[in-house]
């Protein structure tokens, strides 16, 4: 079951943004997130906004690209005529690759036509390994995609089974080879650790398998038992053990060691990249206060301190756009204190850290003394998490914000 949307303020039916949001538009990097809300089956741990065929209630995969393109045009109307080259596009899901490569290409074309893709734009799509082959990847590359992100999760069959993932072990590595052949310079593998039944050795094996495939980027996530998921129900009934935080910490350290040993450096708590170019610029835009428009059901957007989010169900989403109104469900206009808090919350997760002037100095010095922040970075005017601090990042944010 998808998680519920936050409450917020109403959005005008034409989707108009407050003046404060449009201030300085174009000075900040701008990108698009495109949500593809379809999956063949729902995985037990997943609370994303995605739907299997039987849950679609009249919405259809076939019509989805056109509906999404309608919202892209709406975005252009709302944002006005300003020159707004798109630096990054990220297609996520759900399972984007359930759509034909041509549909993804048409969506990208619409973005280019309405806004113009920057010459060096980063264009990523997520892909489930079982849904793509060499031909599909070649078509994506031709359509203008520059980066692939494969949901590998684990190299161990029994872990994949617990996670309800349907690909076979080995398939993700194959996908990386196909992507390279198709001309993708940037390939990411997503990994999940801490699934019920996964051992430390299983995790090591997954890390090694991922590294062997030679991605230039790895995301490694601790499994979160989200409320309302099948996994949460199984944990509640005692059928599977809830992941243990100490074991999670050990796995994180193992990830840091294995990835670092192969030249991948952390640049965000859950993300490692081979070099500056390999970092995901789209995600960095989220973490550094950039603007983006989220296309699709349940997608979140942020422009100049206004956040909004679309209605969740694909049928409701399509109906809104067909009627010519914004699919936005609600929004919030952040005040200065919220924006400051968010900056700390997001920037502290990065290897560059956060400038000290946003923080409570006494608390910062305490955190340095406690080994949570790097002393040299503090001397250079920035709060940067140590390895231990990364594992306690939420606590550090709570302690350092006023």
């Amino acid at each position: 079951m998808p998680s519920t949307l936050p409450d917020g303020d109403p959005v005008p039916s034409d989707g108009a943004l407050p003046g404060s949001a449009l201030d300085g538009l174009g000075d900040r990097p701008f990108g698009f997130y495109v949500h593809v809300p379809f999956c063949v089956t729902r995985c037990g741990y997943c609370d994303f906004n995605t739907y299997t065929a039987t849950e679609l209630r009249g919405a259809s995969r076939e019509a989805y690209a056109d509906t999404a393109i309608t919202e892209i045009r709406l975005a252009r109307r709302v944002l006005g005529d300003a020159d707004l080259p798109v630096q990054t596009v990220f297609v996520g899901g759900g399972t984007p690759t359930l759509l034909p490569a041509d549909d993804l290409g048409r969506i990208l074309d619409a973005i280019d036509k309405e806004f113009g893709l920057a010459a060096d734009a980063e264009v990523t799509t997520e892909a489930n390994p079982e849904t793509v082959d060499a031909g599909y990847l070649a078509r994506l590359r031709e359509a203008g995609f520059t980066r692939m992100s494969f949901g590998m999760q684990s190299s161990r069959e029994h872990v994949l089974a617990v996670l309800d993932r349907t690909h076979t072990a080995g398939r993700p590595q194959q996908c990386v080879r196909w992507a390279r052949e198709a001309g993708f310079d940037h390939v990411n593998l997503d990994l999940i650790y801490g699934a019920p039944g996964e051992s430390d050795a299983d995790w090591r094996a997954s890390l090694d398998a991922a590294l062997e495939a030679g991605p230039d980027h790895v995301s490694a996530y601790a499994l979160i038992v989200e409320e309302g998921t099948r996994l949460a129900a199984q944990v509640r009934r005692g059928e599977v053990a809830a992941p243990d935080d100490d074991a999670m910490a050990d796995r994180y350290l193992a990830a840091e060691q294995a990835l670092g040993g192969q030249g991948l450096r952390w640049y965000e708590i859950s993300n490692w990249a081979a070099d500056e170019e390999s970092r995901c610029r789209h995600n960095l835009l989220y973490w550094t206060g950039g603007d983006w428009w989220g296309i699709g059901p349940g997608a979140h957007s942020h422009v100049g301190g206004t956040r909004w989010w679309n209605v969740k169900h694909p049928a409701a989403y399509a109906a809104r756009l067909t009627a010519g109104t914004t699919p936005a469900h609600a929004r919030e206009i952040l005040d200065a204190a919220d924006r400051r808090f968010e900056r700390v919350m997001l920037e502290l997760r990065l290897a560059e850290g956060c400038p000290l002037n946003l923080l409570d100095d006494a608390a910062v010095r305490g955190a340095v003394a406690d080994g949570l922040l790097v002393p040299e970075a503090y001397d250079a005017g920035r709060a940067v998490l140590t390895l231990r601090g990364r594992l306690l990042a939420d606590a550090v944010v709570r302690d350092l914000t006023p």
Partner: protein
Amino acid sequence: MPLVPNQTDPAVIRNFCIIAHIDHGKSTLADRMLQFTGVVEERQMRAQYLDRMDIERERGITIKSQAVRLPWKDHVLNLIDTPGHVDFSYEVSRSLAACEGAVLLVDAAQGIEAQTLANLYMALEADLHIIPVLNKIDLPAAQPDKYADELAGIIGCDPSEVLRVSGKTGEGVEELLDNIVATVPAPVGDPDGPPRALIFDSVYDTYRGVVTYVRVIDGHLSRREKSMMMSTKAAHDTLEVGVISPEPKPVTGLGVGEVGYLITGVKDVRQARVGDTVTSVSGAAVKPLGGYQDPKPMVFSGLYPVDGDDYPELRDALDKLQLNDAALIYEPETSLALGFGFRCGFLGLLHMEIVRERLEREFNLSLISTAPNVVYRVAMETGQEHRVTNPSEFPEGKIAAVYEPIVRATILSPSDHIGAIMELCQSRRGVLLGMDYLSEDRVEIRYTMPLGEIIFDFFDQLKSRTRGYASLDYEPSGEQESDLVKVDILLQGESVDAFSQIVHKDKSREYGLMMTAKLKELIPRQQFEVPIQAAIGARIIARENIRAIRKDVLAKCYGGDISRKRKLLEKQKEGKKRMKTIGRVDVPQEAFVAALSTGSAADKKK
């Protein structure tokens, strides 16, 4: 001669009370008496008419006594209700002193209970005429013959003299009223002497000030005369004299043997204390009635607002409660762990619970209370002495002796449980005084025991080991020297004053292990390891460790997660603000509440 107040011949007055255990049906019987004597019509009848406080009605117990004037066949019966709990035995003794007779009311399905027996002994000491009565004879489980034998054995009468009634159906109530008229002696006093009236209750009323319930012993109380409290010699204008029947009714005065109330405009029950003697300013009596005592708190506990901002509200609430509760004492204290609060003294555990409940219910306060403790007397080698009402103030330095209050406890129980009871009492440092069979299968067991052991979970333990059948009563019995030590609980090396406790040396380790284990469960993991230690002075007697938390971060924080995550962190930040910080350790309020709860030993409904 008409039976109007102020002109009633003492010869037709019968003053009596009902001695009964909490659920043996006293209030129901009193309700039936109100109905039979016609002072309350059936349609006005509400259950437990005389119990006024919500807590009384809910718990089915009487906390404050009351008096009601009932006309019955050319006589006047004054029913003086008595509190039914050990904490209020002084109030019971004053109510008894206002009577000439007592109805000993016992549940025909359960037999006599320890507190009833204790009150019966008090009534016998006060020379009251006792009318033994079995109630609830309508119950299928009633065994009137068996318990009539038991009662007859205890008070020394013939089983046939034990009356049988049902407060529920009214059966036997008329006969009981007739019996009261026939057997309870009429009051005797000097009608022409200086007025002397005994205060047996004093109640604060928001609208009228203090309403003082009195029984006139000698002379005459008139509403035209200024009245005077003999213990303080304070004079007050007499604003109103009246009787309750069953609502207050002003009268011109009260004569010998009469029972009624007095309003003088005082605003604080401490100015009209139970047991004091009221006289008039003109022609004042010289000698007060005997038996007056200042209330003496036996049990102490710290009360703290959960939200420190509520401290002024707590102070105001205690001030207001004290208007109605002369036994409640309190003084401000500061706890490093709990902030600003009050050290409060109570008559006993029930009194403590009632005060706490009233503070929470009537004044809408959320409170943390520290574990109750008794008063210790500590003699130092220097000859100095300390009176310790708060364990954290236990003196440092060379101690010559520590004295603790002891009680004489009486336990009544079916004889099957003797073993379990003795085991429990022994484990609580009890010394057996004696044991008697009340009937074939019921025993009375007497122990001397430290009060400090009784207030720590004793009653609940007694009930659970006897499947609820045992009843307990105790009375103060001086003090004894004991090998007592203060156990401190340290979090990361810092003593948490709220958790300090004075315990017997042989049990100090047990207490230390129990508290450290409990706190390990209750205190969330911190960013650093937190040792929890129990110590006597500098000596560590128990230790647990809360391991440092190693992971406190959500793995994902992408575009759609930001709002939700900000709100979550802000909520967690708020939660942290509500915690108390000891040294560097954040302790949630719930941990204090849970760690300090002992499973209270006060009477609860079975």
